[in-house]
């Protein structure tokens, strides 16, 4: 916090979790101190417990049917709306990202701009990914056969620890663009941009529960998520090597789709479609083509 020079005392924001479209405190009542890169106090963030994780999964599961069943066009419209809302709060995010990541104003602004552009990029993908990765298969027989991608379900996302906003959006947007719902664990030390993103999502027509944001100790929250039988997949972007292995083992219990952490030098580089396809299932539907008449072949 910068020293206040004018007479007016500013109003602090109480940062809260974002679960099921609501802004609860942690059920554990715990908070932890969030500081800027120089160690100055920024806020107290909720320190989520395993019960918060459980509630978030319930909310995400509840939202899955509606979100995955929405038209791809509709999802694209909603995601684009998120970008519009982000643009409107640009100054706030520039400040939060700058404080969180120790960036000067212009660098922080560049990160926020890249983040907003990333939302726009993914918003445009919602109604194209099925055409790129799905399609008809020329089977040898009188059958029409079509493969289509479908969201895998509830995805637990460990957001990157360093890139608190661009990294977060780069892992979250592909998950929900394709119709999954998400439980996101914010960067442990820099959770504030993530928690503020929750506020944006809440005012952007994104149905409650589609994205759930938890802050706290990554390892503490991730363990129950990795073991949760009603979570379909997990993105380990924010886990170190030891934690990632532990979580991958836990995830094997119900055969979650696991996206292992990969070194990312530059989150602003153009992403491919891998982060979308990682959480897509392929469903292939067959139907006989039949014939116009009962001409049936002879023996």
């Amino acid at each position, binding site marked *: 916090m910068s020293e206040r020079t004018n007479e007016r005392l500013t109003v602090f924001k109480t940062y809260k979790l974002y679960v099921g479209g609501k802004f609860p405190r942690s059920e554990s009542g715990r908070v932890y101190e969030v500081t800027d890169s120089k160690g100055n106090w920024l806020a107290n963030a909720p320190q989520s417990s395993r019960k918060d994780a459980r509630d978030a999964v319930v909310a995400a599961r509840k939202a899955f049917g509606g979100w995955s069943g929405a038209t791809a066009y509709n999802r694209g419209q909603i995601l684009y709306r998120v970008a519009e809302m982000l643009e409107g709060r640009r100054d706030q995010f520039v400040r939060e990202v700058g404080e969180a990541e120790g960036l000067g104003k212009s660098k922080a602004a560049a990160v926020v701009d890249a983040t907003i552009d990333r939302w726009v990029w993914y918003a445009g993908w919602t109604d194209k990914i099925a055409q790129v990765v799905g399609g008809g298969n020329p089977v040898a027989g*009188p*059958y029409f056969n079509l493969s289509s991608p479908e969201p895998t379900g509830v995805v637990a996302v460990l957001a990157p620890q360093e890139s608190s906003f661009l990294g977060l959006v780069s892992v979250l947007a592909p998950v929900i663009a394709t119709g999954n719902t998400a439980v996101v664990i914010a960067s442990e030390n820099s959770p504030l941009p993530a928690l503020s993103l929750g506020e944006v999502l809440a005012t952007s027509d994104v149905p409650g529960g589609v994205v759930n944001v938890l802050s706290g100790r990554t390892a503490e929250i991730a363990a129950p998520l990795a073991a949760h039988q009603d979570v379909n997949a997990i993105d380990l972007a924010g886990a170190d090597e030891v934690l990632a292995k532990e979580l991958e083992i836990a995830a094997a219990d119900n055969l979650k789709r696991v996206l292992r952490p990969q070194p990312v030098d530059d989150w602003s580089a153009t992403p491919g479609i891998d982060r979308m396809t990682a959480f897509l299932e392929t469903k292939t539907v067959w139907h*006989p*083509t*039949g*014939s*116009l*008449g*009962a*001409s*049936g*072949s*002879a*023996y």
Partner: protein
Amino acid sequence: MPTNAPTAALKDVTSSGSTLRRFLHGLPGVDAVGLEARAASLGTRSIKTTAKAYAIDLAISMVDLTTLEGADTPGKVRALGAKAVRPDPTDRTTPTTAAVCVYPDMVTVAKEAVAGSGVKVASVATAFPAGRAALPVKLADVRDAVAAGADEIDMVIDRGAFLAGNYLKVYEEIAAVREACGATRLKVIFETGELSTYDNIRRASWLGMLAGADFIKTSTGKVAVNATPANTLLMLEAVRDFRAQTGVQVGVKPAGGIRTSKDAIKFLVLVNETAGPDWLDNHWFRFGASSLLNDLLMQRQKLATGRYSGPDYVTVD
């Protein structure tokens, strides 16, 4: 009064055009690919040695040896009758065919030719093969054949009326013919190639059975698509289901296009595994065919002697 009067449960369905239509359109649909796949799969049965010998004799006994040409003469029909009575002059153990099948004006000749043999005379009627004549003409055609001594009448349905959705007209025509037949067994020909879809063939099968058919028969042999494994399988399902529902057993006759023993045996497999062994008898299953018989005879000779026969060792009629 039809001899195959449907049970009370089905009586209502023919009370009006709309009830009949509702009933026929309420029958389960047919998936063409699945039906044809099942027929093809049964076609892979391998019928060998004793089973083959049994099947060949059974097939011979099921043949309606047919000549339905404008050029038919008494001489041609007499030769056909002789062939039906004694298919293989070199082997008296060969069964007779089920029947000879001729036009109405040849019934008298045919009756004489098969007299005393047990071979039946079937006559096509009702303005065969097109069926395009007024009902009184069709009935006169039937009565004429019956009066000449036909044991069986092979009528054609009015495909035009059927395709126009006028099911009641088709029903009433069949019922009228049924009545004109008296005790003579009635085969109802759908001309499946013209009905075109499997759904139509299933509906026609039920329509024919409701109207009192003793046999349902695929085709006249006069159009491009005649009996196929799939349409015969479908009709076998229909007679099976009709008996289960009404207790009345109806026969099936595929006609046209069955030329080899191999094919005939596959049709018998269809009968065996669809309608069941109750239909494996010439009272309930027939082949409408002409050239098939000689191939069956050559195969029969091969089984008996162990060497392949040739066309010069079976009679050409």
